[in-house]
């Protein structure tokens, strides 16, 4: 007996700790706790222990709500739903990739409260907890942004995303790789082939600087320490030359200002000149730059340093990657394509670092990276923005208030019904107490994901359906014939069957991907499970005396 209590206490502490430290998974942990405590309360005998299991669950549910609060969909919190329409249907893996990329884009924008979810195969809904038109416009811009790829050789634009024929970018299968670890092939149109042949003529082994969204009219402002980053190279002049080299483009060079405590006579070329600057440095001199008329383009501290590479030939130090300016890769031109004769098919490839699976993984990552640069950004399928839904915050609040009122009302009405049916306080009180517990647990679990309209409807309904288990048990116990244990066993048999059947009828909906109604499915299933796992043993324990 003492041991059981100790185990219980330890489990409660453990769950409380994980809920505290991993708020993202709080809902899942609560469900796990529900199953474990539910299982224990079947296994453990004695009224006191069964009650304690119920108490533990309620405590964890309240703890979670108190700590992390409840999340509500925009129907209740107010906000805007922006549908992102895919240009062609996506497979489920591709869809996951799209959803994750859009999430990343939105979070880079500081939009942490954004919800992104797939609807069918051709649409992704983005929900933003704001209805400010200007803000929404900027979100739409971030979402719809399609990257522009350019390749620069020796200060000349030699390749453009436009030249690449759509749908011809492929990862080269391993058996077709000639001695390299990875490769990506693509075809270009005639204009592109001719332009490229001319631009790279005689430039064998030159790097082609592959940029995605290279800023136009910009200057990088950084300290030498920032630029040097973690590089172990010592040739400062060589490094500076390498940086200047990769920023070069005839007629549209990106400037570089080494900041050493003084902006000197740095002035913007036009009123749209951008200063590319790290977050940390911008806190220090962002204001000064803006006062000079620069627009700030703030990048992560880790992105401001270029990746230097010491090459073995005459080129000396090279820049491999410089995220701050959109330089993502700089493969070398193979001599065979620098003869001046137009080529229509190209392949970018190379060796991968590491050994074994590590090597395979690196090769794959390289392929993916080049593929996405050539495609003009991380989104594998092009998108457009559909017409949006706006829910004003006050309206959402009103909806929430009335829904919660409904929840309370439903509880009162069911209590009334039960009291009319049984006319016994000793039965009425436990039923109400357990219904309230179920409601708390449901709100806490579903609230740690998101409560949307369908979810709320499900919770209100669950109060009515959840009470069914108690009704079955009460009616069995009130029967005259049979011992108490027999009656309970019969009641449990029915409850187990009905709950199993009800849950399985809804489960296919859970996996259908129909996000609008998944909330309803979850609350209905959870409501039924609660009836089986928690209320059944606890209620039976409380009401045990009734049948005698």
């Amino acid at each position, binding site marked *: 007996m003492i041991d059981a209590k100790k185990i219980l206490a330890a489990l409660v502490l453990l769950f409380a700790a994980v809920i505290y430290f991993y708020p993202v998974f709080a809902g899942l942990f609560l469900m796990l706790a529900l199953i474990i405590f539910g299982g224990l309360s079947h296994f453990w005998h004695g009224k006191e222990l069964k009650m304690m299991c119920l108490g533990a669950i309620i405590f964890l549910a309240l703890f979670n709500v108190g700590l992390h609060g409840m999340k509500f969909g925009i129907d209740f919190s107010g906000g805007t739903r922006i549908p992102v329409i895919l240009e062609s249907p996506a497979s489920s893996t591709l869809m996951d990739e799209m959803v994750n990329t859009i999430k990343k884009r939105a979070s880079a924008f500081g939009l942490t409260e954004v919800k992104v979810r797939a609807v069918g195969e*051709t649409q992704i809904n983005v929900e933003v907890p704001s209805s400010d038109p200007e803000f929404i416009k900027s979100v739409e811009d971030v979402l719809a942004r399609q990257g522009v790829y350019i390749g620069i050789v020796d200060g000349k634009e030699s390749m453009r995303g436009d030249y690449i024929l759509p749908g011809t970018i492929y990862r080269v299968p391993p058996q077709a790789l000639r001695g390299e670890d990875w490769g990506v092939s693509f075809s270009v149109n005639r204009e592109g082939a001719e332009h490229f042949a001319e631009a790279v003529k005689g430039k064998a082994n030159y790097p082609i600087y592959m940029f995605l969204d290279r800023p136009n009219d910009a200057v990088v402002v950084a300290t030498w320490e920032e630029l040097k980053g973690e590089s172990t190279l010592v040739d400062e002049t060589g490094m500076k030359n390498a940086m200047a080299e990769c920023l070069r483009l005839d007629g549209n060079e990106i400037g570089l200002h080494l900041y050493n405590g003084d902006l000197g006579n740095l002035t913007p070329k036009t009123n749209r000149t951008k200063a590319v600057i790290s977050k940390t440095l911008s806190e220090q001199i962002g204001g000064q730059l803006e006062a000079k008329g620069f627009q700030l383009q703030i990048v992560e501290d880790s992105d401001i340093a270029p990746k230097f590479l010491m090459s073995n030939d005459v080129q000396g130090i090279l820049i491999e990657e410089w995220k701050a300016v959109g330089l993502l890769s700089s493969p070398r031109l193979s001599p065979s394509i620098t003869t001046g004769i137009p080529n229509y098919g190209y392949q970018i490839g190379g060796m991968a670092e590491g050994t074994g699976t590590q090597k395979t993984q690196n090769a794959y990552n390289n392929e993916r990276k080049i593929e996405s640069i050539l495609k003009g950004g991380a989104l594998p399928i092009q998108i457009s923005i559909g017409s949006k*839904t706006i829910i004003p915050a006050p309206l959402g609040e009103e909806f929430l208030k009335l829904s919660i009122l409904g929840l309370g009302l439903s509880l009162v009405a069911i209590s009334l019904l039960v009291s009319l049916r049984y006319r016994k306080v000793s039965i009425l009180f436990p039923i109400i107490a357990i219904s309230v517990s179920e409601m708390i647990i449901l709100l806490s679990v579903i609230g740690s994901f998101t409560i949307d309209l369908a979810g709320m409807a499900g919770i209100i309904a669950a109060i*009515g359906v959840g009470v069914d288990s108690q009704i079955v048990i009460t009616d069995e116990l009130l029967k005259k014939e049979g011992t108490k244990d027999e009656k309970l066993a019969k009641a449990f048999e029915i409850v187990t069957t009905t709950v199993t059947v009800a849950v399985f009828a809804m489960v296919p909906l859970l996996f259908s991907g129909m996000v609008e109604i998944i909330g309803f499915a979850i609350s209905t299933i959870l409501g039924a499970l609660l009836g089986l796992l928690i209320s059944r043993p606890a209620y039976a324990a409380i009401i045990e005396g009734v049948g005698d």
Partner: protein
Amino acid sequence: MISNIYKGEYRLLLIFPLILIIASLYLLPTLKMGMDFRGGTLITLQVSNQPDAAAVQNDLMAAGFDANVKLYESELGRKMEIEVSQTEQMYEADALKAEFNTQLEKVAQLEAEANQNASREEEYEAERDKLDEMADRMFELSGSNTEAELYPNLNGLKTAFNEAYMKMSDLQMGQVMEVVDQSVQYTSKSAVTVSPALSKHFIEQAFNVVLYSAILSTILVFFFFRTLVPSLAVLTGAASDVIIALGAMCYFGIPLTLPSFAALLMLVGFSLDTDVLLTTRLVKRRGDPRENAFDAMKTGMTMSFSAMVAFLVLFGVSMITHITVYYEISAVALAGLVGDVFATWGLNAVMVLWWKEHETKRVSR
């Protein structure tokens, strides 16, 4: 106290569920498909004047739109909902888009090949012409003042095509709003569009869900009872319940949408609950089956009533807030719960009772 309805000629009880089922089956073809399954656009306006919904609807019909306009009055303000079906042009545009995407890849591939091998040139030209035709049709549909010839670059053509497609839905919305603006003043506007592709996806998914749900339930029921007649009775009860709920949806004009679909599925679960309760008590218990049936009915009715009460409250909230999701779920659930009373205690109970009494006779002989 109510007397036992299963005393005497209980087979007469079949009349009620049978009438309901036949009436429902008769009404079934008139089931209204909601926007989720039919496609279309739902525009929601917070209205600030006193427009006449019927007049707006007539104006929209006159302008060639299959529209349905509703005006809701509540403490939360006046709300107008305009549902516009997907137009023929939108269907065509959607199909065109799918074709275009496939053709584009083909043409790109051919262009790459033709560049290196002149003998493919002819085939490329022919396929490219087809692609251009599709694009021109899209430009025509969307009223875009451009033509495919202006885009020799495939990327350019692709972008122009997709812009035209997006323009189409904007165009339709614009035309609808032009009519609406004449008589309605509003403070905010929202729009949800379900494209033909998305509605097709929903239909497929819903079909799968129904299929899997039916298979799982059947397997479970047979697993629990392991006897043919009671299992069949339970499944008949659940199926009848859904049919009656669908009949009520037809009668009251509740459209089949994702929420009402979810409610129907929940009904299957609930209906199986009461059916299982009844059948367990009848099949696995000793004593007078008729008494057992009536006993089960008392418990089952309490269960049904408590569920009805919860959905009635939800229905009430939907009346105040005009939240369609609440309305569709609660209305369908209420109809189904009422239907369940008849299906379980009129149909299922009679089937199992008759089977039980016949089996008892067989055994005693």
